[in-house]
């Protein structure tokens, strides 16, 4: 029973993603289902912010997590995210071709054909919000070998961000807390600026990595083995699909979807390490990440909020990550995300946490570096 519970509690996103897709397919007001589910998640997350649970192990210290099941889910989520884009593209096709509003039944589901401008906006936001959540699978699989790593690249490419997979493992995990890591937001930066700077910085890292790799092999930068170029080429099917289905409208919808998805991705990076400082070359410790592990956040985001443990025990599967008493916001990602959207509110909120970090976690050198920044 415990095994069943531990393994199914991480299915919130798969279930909600599928409901979002069904909303897009059924049409009408239902296309807003993804937005509604996001809102409901924010409410549940905020309401349960004080519940923090530990990772579950049996008496012998073995995890209840079933690796083959969790990996099957993560791999299948690639298909779910592809279907999500197909569903949105189908709606765009109807919109640009002025399909009449009509109804028909299929497999017990009432489907409304045709779509209004307002509902198309809702459909695009819904798809963008849930495509962005794909980061949690892209992230987990980035720490794997060939097939898992490749699936991670594909999932991220659906959001135009396949450079993330290399940059996360080979840059962020090495340089976290240091200015060499674009994914670590220094004090004073807001989430909007961070989105652009982090995205560009990580892409540049992947670019430089391939440039150096090509040079070592004596090849030109433009070669078929260039993983930076290949990563962006993986996004090509999405571009073709949306342009084919709706021309400029389709392209605008895809860019909106990517914007929302990348904003969510970088918001997670922002929240995970904002203002934390590590001297370059010094070991990564629990204190160099913020934890967000209230119960709903933990299950929804497949424990990605247990950053402190993840960055110290990077080899650990998400279902085994635990509360290690590192710096902790004490609230979930949804609640914090809403705060980050209003930079003055975030700065006010973060001040007490940074003061606490400076006094209880930072060493003298880290405090000295911190003194050069505001909040």
């Amino acid at each position, binding site marked *: 029973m415990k095994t069943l519970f531990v393994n199914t509690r991480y299915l919130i996103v798969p279930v909600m993603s599928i409901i979002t897709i069904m909303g897009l397919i059924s049409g009408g007001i239902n296309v807003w289902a993804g937005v509604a589910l996001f809102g409901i998640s924010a409410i549940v997350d905020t309401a349960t912010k004080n519940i923090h649970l530990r990772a579950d192990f049996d008496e012998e210290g073995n995890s209840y997590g079933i690796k083959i099941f969790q990996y099957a889910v993560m791999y299948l989520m690639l298909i779910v995210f592809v279907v999500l884009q197909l569903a949105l593209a189908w709606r765009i096709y109807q919109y640009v071709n002025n399909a009449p509003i009509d109804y028909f039944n299929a497999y017990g589901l009432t489907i409304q054909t045709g779509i209004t401008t307002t509902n198309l906006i809702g459909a695009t936001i819904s798809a963008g919000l849930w495509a962005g959540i794909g980061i949690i699978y892209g992230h987990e699989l980035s720490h794997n070998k*060939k097939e898992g790593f490749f699936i991670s690249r594909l999932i991220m490419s659906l959001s135009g961000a396949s450079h993330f997979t290399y940059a996360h493992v080979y840059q962020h995990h*090495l340089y976290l807390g240091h200015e060499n890591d674009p994914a670590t937001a220094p004090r004073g930066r807001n989430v909007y600026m961070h989105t652009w700077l982090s995205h560009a910085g990580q892409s540049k890292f992947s670019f430089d990595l391939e440039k150096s790799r090509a040079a070592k092999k004596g090849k030109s930068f433009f070669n078929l083995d260039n993983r930076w170029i290949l990563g962006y080429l993986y996004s090509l099917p999405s571009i073709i699909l949306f342009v084919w289905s709706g021309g400029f409208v389709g392209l605008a919808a895809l860019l909106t979807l990517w914007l929302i998805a990348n904003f969510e991705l970088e918001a997670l990076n922002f929240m995970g390490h904002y203002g934390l400082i590590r001297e370059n070359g010094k070991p990564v410790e629990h204190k160099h990440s913020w934890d967000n592990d209230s119960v709903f956040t933990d299950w929804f985001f497949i424990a990605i909020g247990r950053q402190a443990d993840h960055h110290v*025990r990077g080899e650990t599967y998400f279902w085994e990550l635990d509360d290690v008493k590192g710096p902790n916001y004490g609230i979930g990602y949804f609640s914090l995300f809403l705060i980050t959207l209003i930079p003055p509110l975030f700065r006010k909120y973060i001040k007490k946490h940074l003061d606490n970090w400076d006094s209880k976690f930072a060493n003298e050198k880290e405090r000295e570096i911190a003194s050069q920044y505001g909040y």
Partner: protein
Amino acid sequence: MFNLFKKKDLKVELTPSLKQINLNSGDNLLTKALENGLKWPHKCRVGSCGTCRCKLIQGKISPEIDFENVLSQDQLKEGYILACKSTVKTDLKILVNLQEEKKAR
């Protein structure tokens, strides 16, 4: 039938320290070494820095990430692996300089 899924008791012999780690098949090499109190050099624990590299002399591991992004082709041919991303499959013999030994030199 369930014996198929039962984890095997295995051991990892380290040289030149002559230390030994007892673990189960499927365990992560570095995690178990650290849990046993060994000062195995390590830093990132995600297979990106190469600090935990060691030479596999005998036995079989399953890589959890592609080692070629960090180790050179020569190192791979010589049998070098990254302990932080190695799942132990059989008894192993490993060449690794633990940190205590480094300091003594």
